[in-house]
């Protein structure tokens, strides 16, 4: 084979240190007596988009006039190493043709950095990372991938040092490990941690230690029903045992939530609904019951002011926060909540008679209005904490509250629609309607929108073919103005 350059293309996202990574590689080449040419496409991509770096390597000759002509473009079919700091970017490398099966070693971190399109959806708009990884693997000569961000974080290092380790460990560039180490050392910044991360990564890559990639997927281990702590709890769990085992997990979580939210009787009512549903469904696996059990529990445990107050005053919560913000042991934290209660939410936790009257009285509303609007409350303070505990205790009168009646009326309409469909043996409709329970979520305006949309689907959907119900759900998830669903209704009307 004729002499040629070794070519490396790297995609990094803004702030991931792609420039540092590139400079390190160039310095390693220099130490090894190689030419290294680097180019980058910064442009406006320097903010949040992906930046493409391109490097070519070639050994120096003893003759000074023998200088290679290096290309400034990564070209399809001409890449030896492709590096992606994130798995979707690895798939993009493949999509752009920079990865060829006979030549390219693809190095990628398994973690995800979500794009705005994935983040802003009303439901789950994330890409299927497992699929992207699988495709990327099939088209590369070698695919070296593991969670490099985690490895970096474990060592308290920057991801560039892990990427550099992966390149070193892949062995495509004939450079000695000590040259890589010397470059990290001479950078003079966080040398020890970066070296440690580099070593760990190089070793992983050298062993081609490809991990089985499970991107945050739920464990597939069979669910075992836990043991009850109380007598009443035991009764509930025994009741769960009368269902097929595939439903244990969802029912257990549903029951736990109801007990935590209200009491055992509430959970018992929940199970009764699931039982009637299962009886009507008459199918061993109970796919409709499964969906109903999931969304019914969530809906029954709607977040009113009492619930939020309950959740915000849990002691375990502070530990969560401490871990998340990386607080040192015993470091003092100030915790400020951003609440914006509306009159509707205040009335919702009051007994129905009072709540209704307040909503009709402009004077009472004016008084309550004084307590609405944006509030910043220090939950680490005694006054706010006690106030929240008092609000949390409103749950004892929840069953007679205005909000309870409002939510349960809708719950009944939804459950009846599913049951009606089951009674008519229309399992397609029943399943679709049950799945529409996913729509219900949020607070204030959002909750109003999502529940009304579900009620619309229940009512207006009754006259539509069963196959259309599912598409109504997707239309509702299209936008937060309700336009998508309205259009969908118009088009089928």
């Amino acid at each position, binding site marked *: 084979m004729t002499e040629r350059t070794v070519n490396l293309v790297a995609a990094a996202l803004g702030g991931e240190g792609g420039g540092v990574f590139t400079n390190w590689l160039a310095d390693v080449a220099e130490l090894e007596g190689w030419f290294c040419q680097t180019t980058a496409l910064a442009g406006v991509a320097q903010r949040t988009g992906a930046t493409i770096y391109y490097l070519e390597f070639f050994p120096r000759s003893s003759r000074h006039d023998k200088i290679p002509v290096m290309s400034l473009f990564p070209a399809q079919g001409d890449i030896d190493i492709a590096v992606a700091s994130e798995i979707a970017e690895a798939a993009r490398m*493949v*999509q752009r043709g920079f990865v060829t099966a006979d030549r390219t070693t693809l190095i990628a971190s398994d973690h995800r950095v979500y794009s705005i399109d994935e983040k*802003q959806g009303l439901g789950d708009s994330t890409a299927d990372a497992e699929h992207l990884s699988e495709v990327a693997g099939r088209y590369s000569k070698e695919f070296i991938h593991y969670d490099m961000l985690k490895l970096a974080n474990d060592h308290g290092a920057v991801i560039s040092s892990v990427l550099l380790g992966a390149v070193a460990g892949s062995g495509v560039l004939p450079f000695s490990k000590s040259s890589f180490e010397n470059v990290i050392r001479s950078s003079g910044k966080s040398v020890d941690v970066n070296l440690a991360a580099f070593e760990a990564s190089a070793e992983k890559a050298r062993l081609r230690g490809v991990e089985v990639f499970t991107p945050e997927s739920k464990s597939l281990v069979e669910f075992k029903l836990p043991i009850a702590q109380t007598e009443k709890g035991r009764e509930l769990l025994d009741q769960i045992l009368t269902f097929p085992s595939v439903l244990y997990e969802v029912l257990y979580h549903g029951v736990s939530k109801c007990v935590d939210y209200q009491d055992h009787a509430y959970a018992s009512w929940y199970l009764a609904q699931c039982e009637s549903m299962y009886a009507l469904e008459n199918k061993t696996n109970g796919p409709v019951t499964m969906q109903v059990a999931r969304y019914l529990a969530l809906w029954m445990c709607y977040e009113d002011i009492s619930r939020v107050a309950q959740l915000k005053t849990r002691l375990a919560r502070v530990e969560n926060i401490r871990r998340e913000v990386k607080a040192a042991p015993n*470091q003092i934290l100030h915790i400020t909540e951003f609440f914006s209660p509306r009159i509707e939410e205040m009335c919702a936790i009051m007994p129905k008679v009072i709540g209704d009257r307040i909503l009709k009285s402009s004077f009472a509303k004016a008084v309550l209005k004084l307590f609405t609007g944006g509030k910043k409350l220090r939950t680490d303070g005694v006054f706010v904490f006690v106030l929240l505990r008092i609000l949390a205790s409103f749950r004892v009168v929840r069953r007679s509250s205005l909000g309870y009646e409002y939510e349960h009326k809708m719950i009944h309409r939804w459950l009846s629609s599913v049951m009606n469909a089951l009674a008519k043996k229309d399992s397609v409709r029943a399943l679709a309607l049950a799945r529409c329970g996913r729509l219900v979520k949020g607070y204030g305006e959002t909750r109003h929108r999502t529940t009304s949309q579900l009620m619309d689907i229940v009512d207006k959907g009754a006259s539509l073919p069963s196959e259309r119900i599912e598409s109504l759900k997707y239309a509702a998830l299209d936008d937060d103005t309700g336009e998508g669903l309205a259009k969908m209704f118009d088009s089928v009307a």
Partner: protein
Amino acid sequence: MAERSFEHEVQKLKYSHGEIFRGEGILAVTKALLQSGVSYVSGYQGSPISHLMDVLNDAQGILGELGAHFEASGSEATAAAMLSASINYPLRGAVTWKSTVGTNVASDALSNVASSGVTGGAMVIVGEDYGEGSSIMQERTYAFAMKAQMWLLDPRPNLTSIVDMVEKGFQLSEASNTPIFYMMRIRSCHVTGEFIARDNVSPSYSNAKPVTPNREAEKIILPPNVYEQEREKIAKRLPEAIEFIRKNKINEFFEGKFSQVGVIVPGGTYNTLIRALQRQGLSDVYGNSDIPIYVMNAVYPLVPDEIIKFCAEKSKVLLLEEGQPEYIEQGIHTILRRADVHTRLFGKDIMPMAGEYTGQVTLLGLARFLEQDSDGSIPIEMSSKEVSALQSTLSDDDHNSLLTSLPPRPSGLCTGCPERPLFSAIKQVQSELGPFHISSDIGCHSFATLAPFNLGNTIMGYGLSLASSSGIRHSLPHKAISIMGDGGFWHNGLSSGVTSAVFNKHDGILIIIDNGYSAATGGQDIPSFVDPNTIVATTIDADSAHRDDKQPIDEACRGAGVKWLRTVSTYSIEQMKNVLSEALQSSEPGLKVIIAEGECMLNRQRRIKPLLKQSIAGGKRTLRARFYVDEDTCNGDHACIRLSGCPSLTIKENPDPLREDPITYIDNSCVGCGVCGSNAHSAVLCPSFVRVDLVFNPSVIDRVVCNLREKAVSLFSTNSAENQL
């Protein structure tokens, strides 16, 4: 203070004769300017030459020692006008900008200096923002070179050629009394390499050695001089330039054993051609090609003798000319026809008319060319069909699946950006009073036209948003809304926008985003200053670098006759919404200017981070804030993300086993600007946002209070769940 500092690297600019200079293209160009003895340099930042401006800025000391004058021009027009220094005197000067947008802005002065002609070498270093990585509409600088009769250099992208061509460029400019364009392509601005340095040269005239004022009336661009100047361009300057290019071998001939064919290539794409030839087995890695190559380092003017010489004995020649229209191809055809040379010239007939000539495009073009009427005497390793297949190795199924599943990654505003809360506010006001037609502008705020804000209808140019609203304002259902950055305002928004609008009784709204820097191009200083504002949560602050000659935007507007003017901190979303609504519904006549203040977060963080570290290390009581989303109360509707798009505001798997939609999550890059909290308030979102202040070096009072609180709170706490299963 710009985003990237070259303070360390500019020391290399002092290298003397024989030293090996290693670095980036922009540094090499700067060194070449010093080696050429420039007397003045200037320009306006913009990708891909933003960093060239930063290098020049950081090299001011070195420039000063030599006696060279530097200015950060107010616009490209300002920079171009500076070239007039070379009209009457043998002063060498160079200016730089992003092209073609900068060239368009500069065109008035540029045409005039081209007409007058120059005595000293005058060079415009254009960052040719064409192709992948570009941020503007796709046009070529070539057209301007032709219409104004300025010469255009496009050197081979290695540092030795880049440096040589700067020096020869000045000589060419002087030999033909013509200002010249020197083209830096996107990738060559940051290409690294090495060259052997020469000594820097002091300019012949400077502060210490002033010129003797010299009036040459015939060089003033008034009739009848202009007629003579046009004649001179063609009759004198053009032939002189061609002669200089020929004599000094600016263009290069490379022999090859297959002399029956050849490739003509602009210098800038030479390396791509060599790689393509190498992959076809027709060149080695050092560029020794089997196919003869004619490299045009000067792409305008064409040198007829050289082209005829190269083409005459060949049956076919390929021209690799990037972009459209195919000016060079037309020029070569004219030359060949006039000389009655019958060589078949291939160009845009087998190459793409639009778009960059990447490695793949060039390789494919070369294969196609060699396959034309081939007698098999030139073997190639890959047929055009095989090359086409390289474009994508994916099967149809995988191709389609990636097409649907791979999320695009558009640019967006940085974490904690002060512009985000402004657009959150506008989006909220729009949902009450909209929909809006918004005239947008150039700058970071251009990204508001993308997800998640989707605000803005047109972008007409730098500082032109207000001007561009003038034609539509009488036909809008609401008061016209224009958004402009502080950079755009000073670049020309004040004159073409504000002044004109006041004069024409424009009663629309102009929102000027005042972040204190030319942020989108890398945080360069601009005339106005923004005082560090107290934002919601970042709890340490300091004065920004002080400047005596502040040029405040509000005073400029008032001076231009604006009566209705409000200044609002962008982070005050509620107040911003109120001011916007007031402006939209006001019956007061005249332009309404809202100055939306908030310091660029990138710059702010660069200033604050060391202070924060220092404060903590020094044992001072310090608070650092960041935000947190309560995973128990977040439902995963992501309304907060649709109002923000902050990179630190992301998602993660829902910890609730019953819920399926991911919940919002704030990662550790959060700078605590507080926008998510303010949005939760002003848009009445969920109760999940929490601000956490970490207290470093707590005082005794902190400790006592914290202790008491914890004890009191524990009295009222219950276990994790009131009821147990």
